[in-house]
Structure formats: C-alpha cells, structure tokens
C-alpha cells in the first residue's frame, strides 16, 4: 500500500490548476462512481452517497467529455471544506450552486446544509488521484483509494487531470471549444424541498421468515427518522421496532451476501440501511432492500429526516 502516491508532495508543475485544502471538518473524501467488480474480495462497490448531486456537480464542472465524464472523481463533503485555487484558473462545479471559475488565490467554502447533508465539489477534468482496484474513491476501512485512503486534511493539494494548456471558455463553450446551448446542465434533483417525507421504495425480503408477521406492517405503515449514526457504511434509522422471531434471533446465522440499500435488522429491531462502503457480507436478516434509485434518499438524508417506506416489486 505504500506505493500509492501522496497528493501532498508537489511535483513542481506550478502552472497546473489545483485546489489546496485550507480547512476541513467532518467526513470529507475523494469519491468517484465506484469500483464495481471486487465484492468477491470483500471490497464494497463504493460510489457517491448522493449520485444525483455528484453527477450534477460534475456536469457543472463541464465534465461531460471523454476521460472526465459525469463520473469523474470529486470531493464528497459531509461537514465543511475550504479550498484555495493555485497555479491557474480552475473551473469547479458544486451541487445546487453551479459552476464557478476560481482564479489563483481565490478561496471557496462548501458546507453541509440542513437540506443537503452530503455535497460535492467537482473540478473540471476530475481530481487526479490514483486508480486502485478500478476506482478512485476513498475506502476508509481499508485505507484505500482517494487521497492516501483517508479523509482530506489541511495542506492536501487536489490537482485536476486537465492539462494546463487546455483553456476554459466559460459560458460560451465546452473545453474543446464547441458551443453548447445549455449554460446550466439539466439535472433532476432527487430531493426537491417539498419532498420532506420521501417515500423510499423497498423490495421486501429476502429474510422475511426471520420476522414476526407484524413487522412488515410496521415497516410500511410507520415513519422512520435518520439517526446521527450515519456514514458511508450504513445509516441507522429510528422508529418502531421491527420484531424478529425470538427463537431465530437467538440462533447464530451464517454470514450472507449484502448489497447497497439492504435493510439489516439487528436484535434491537432498529433498521440499518447499507451505504456504498458496506461490508460485502453480514449476519443480520434483511427485511427488505431499497431500490437502487432510492438509496440516496436514505443514506444522504439529513439527520432527523423522516422517511416512509413503500413496497416495490422487482421488474
């Protein structure tokens, strides 16, 4: 693991656009679209907590060309991040805010809000970090990917993969000079403000035999709120207990395969929804699995957000 390059040491390319981290608090990591295909080795799929905002930020940063598409590595901010542009003008994109060109010396601050706990800062060209197991995202449990496998620190330097010779033409065209009609990318936000009690679609099972019959009704007819115990591994919800069958709850279960969005129920009956960095196996029974498109409504939700589950049928 010592071969992974540090992004702290400068490479002398002063003209290359970069962002220097001035201040950071909370869970602030480099993330990309994930590293599918390694779950057999116990490596979770990764990817952004809030894919819709991640893509929005990348589109604002004009990352829609080959090599730096809407899945380019960006900074995921759960907390606060303050950066300063260095070397050259750098185009950044921030979810919910839009594109901004930062001149060298310009400072930009991004923080979680009451509505948007998880935010993204993308840079034109994508952030230059090594690809590890097919992805650039940070997997904290394995100290792998991103910036040395850890959360960002003051002094870190985030370089763009964009070469310094390419000139940005803000508001008039793409990086390659082709004019484009849309000045702001059209992205449907997954969380509009009026949606303050989102319906989260869930495919029931597969471990329904572990639960008392009433548990399904409890899941589908009640409100659950997002607890402060929420990170990239999982989000614990608080609500009425989902009762497991006593006899089965006492028995030790073999570990079973887990997926993103799985709703695990530990013996205390309070559900945990697995996020992108979930363990690939686990022993708690699953009362259901949130459909792919709705996982971010749970794992990127603000603490205290009230959720309701709705039954979905797999296609």
């Amino acid at each position, binding site marked *: 693991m010592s071969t992974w390059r540090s992004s702290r040491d400068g490479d002398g390319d002063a003209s290359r656009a970069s962002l220097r981290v001035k201040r950071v608090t909370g869970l602030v990591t480099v993330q990309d679209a994930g590293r599918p295909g390694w779950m057999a080795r*116990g490596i979770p799929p990764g990817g952004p907590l809030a894919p819709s905002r991640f893509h929005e930020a990348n589109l604002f940063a004009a990352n829609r060309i080959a090599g730096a598409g809407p899945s380019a590595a960006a900074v995921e901010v759960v907390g606060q991040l303050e950066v300063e542009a260095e070397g050259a003008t750098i185009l950044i994109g921030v979810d919910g805010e839009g594109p901004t060109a930062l001149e060298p010396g310009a400072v930009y601050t991004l923080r979680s809000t009451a509505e948007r706990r998880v935010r993204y800062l993308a840079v034109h060209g994508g952030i230059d970090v090594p690809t590890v197991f097919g992805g650039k995202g940070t997997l904290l449990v*394995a100290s792998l990917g991103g910036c040395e496998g850890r959360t960002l620190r003051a002094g870190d330097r985030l370089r763009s993969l964009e070469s310094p010779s390419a000139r940005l033409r803000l508001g008039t065209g793409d990086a390659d000079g082709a004019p484009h009609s849309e000045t702001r990318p059209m992205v449907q936000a997954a969380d509009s403000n009026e949606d303050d009690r989102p319906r989260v679609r869930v495919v029931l*099972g597969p471990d329904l035999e572990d639960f008392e019959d009433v548990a399904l009704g409890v899941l589908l007819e009640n409100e659950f709120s997002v607890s402060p115990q929420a990170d990239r591994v999982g989000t614990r919800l608080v609500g009425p207990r989902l009762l497991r069958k006593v006899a089965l709850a006492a028995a030790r279960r073999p*570990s*079973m*395969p887990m*997926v993103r969005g799985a709703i695990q129920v530990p013996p205390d009956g309070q559900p945990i929804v697995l996020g992108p960095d979930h363990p690939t196996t686990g022993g708690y029974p699953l009362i259901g699995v949130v459909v792919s498109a709705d996982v971010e409504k749970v794992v990127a939700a603000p603490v205290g957000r009230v959720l309701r589950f709705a039954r*979905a049928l797999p*296609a």
Partner: protein
Amino acid sequence: MNDRMWLGDAALRFSRPAHLEARALHDALRAVVGVIDVVVTEAHVAVTFDPAKPRPPLDAVLDQAIGAENAPAPASKLHVIAVSYDGADLEACAEALAISADSLVAFHSARVYDVKMIGFLPGFAYLGDVDERIALPRRATPRTRVPAWSVAIADRYSAVYPFASPGGWHLIGMATPFAPFAIDLGDRVRFEPR
C-alpha cells in the same frame, strides 16, 4: 435456482449448490455478460447487475455450471502465513478450552485451511474448519478496535484481520503482513509459528 430471491432491484440471492466449489461457481457467474459482482458465502450466492439493462441469463448459466462434469478446478494458491502466537486472548482461550497455550498453537498451525468465504472487511478470509478442540464461540463483548494483522479464531473459523477494525473474535497472534488482497476464494492457507 428455485429458491432465487431478490435483493432489491439489482441483485439476486440463491442457495449455494452444495457440490459446486466456491471459486468455480464464482467464476461461472462472473463470466456472464451483464453481471457486475458475485459474492459467495457458505450458504448463499448473490449476483448483482445493472437494473437498467436486460437481466443476465443466470438460470441457464447456473444450470450449465451444475450440470458440468469434471469441470476444470480453478488455479488454487497455498499461502503460508508466519505468526507470532502472542495474542491478547491466547492464554484465556487455552484456559477456556482446558488445554495449554502450546497445544492451542499446535492445533491451530497443524492444518491447511480452506478459504470458506471472503467478507466482513475487504480481504477478510474466513478460514476453516479449525480443529474442534480449539473451537470457541465469539467473545461476548466485541472489541472496538482489533489491530491490523491480528490472527483470530471464532466458531469454526480462523482469520487474519487485514485492517484495524472492531471485532468479536479471539486474538491469538499477529501475522507477518502480506499483500492484503492476495487471498482468493478457493485458495488454502497454513499458519507457521514464528
């Protein structure tokens, strides 16, 4: 695949066909176009795919895998891991098992273990079965932090923690570090006292 169950809209889980070796099963399913990930545990297999694309023909592939006779055994590696048997729980385990610490070490290092499954942590291989004379239930209270490279036992398994993490297994030693993702399904592992 008659017990096939949905895991959301992007994965299926089914019971593992008893006679199929884990690695061969993984490789057969992973080769199917449209399959993104395959996780094999002792009792189950899960296959994930892109929900926006046509579902891969898993039934046909599994039928084929089950029906195939004399399927070539996938390449299997033997990993020899050096261990200093000085773990924090070594003496307590020996006491609970009513054997000496030396016997525990001898039983633990005498076997060649199969990789039963990989999970819990990236690269965490469940090795089994341990000698029944050193089989102990997990600790009643898990540790909040187990150091990386701890060698541990619990139930029928032994394992090496490739990263520091919380953990409920009994710590019996420390492994000499190795490439963290070197161990694959179907491989075998032997521990050597150091």
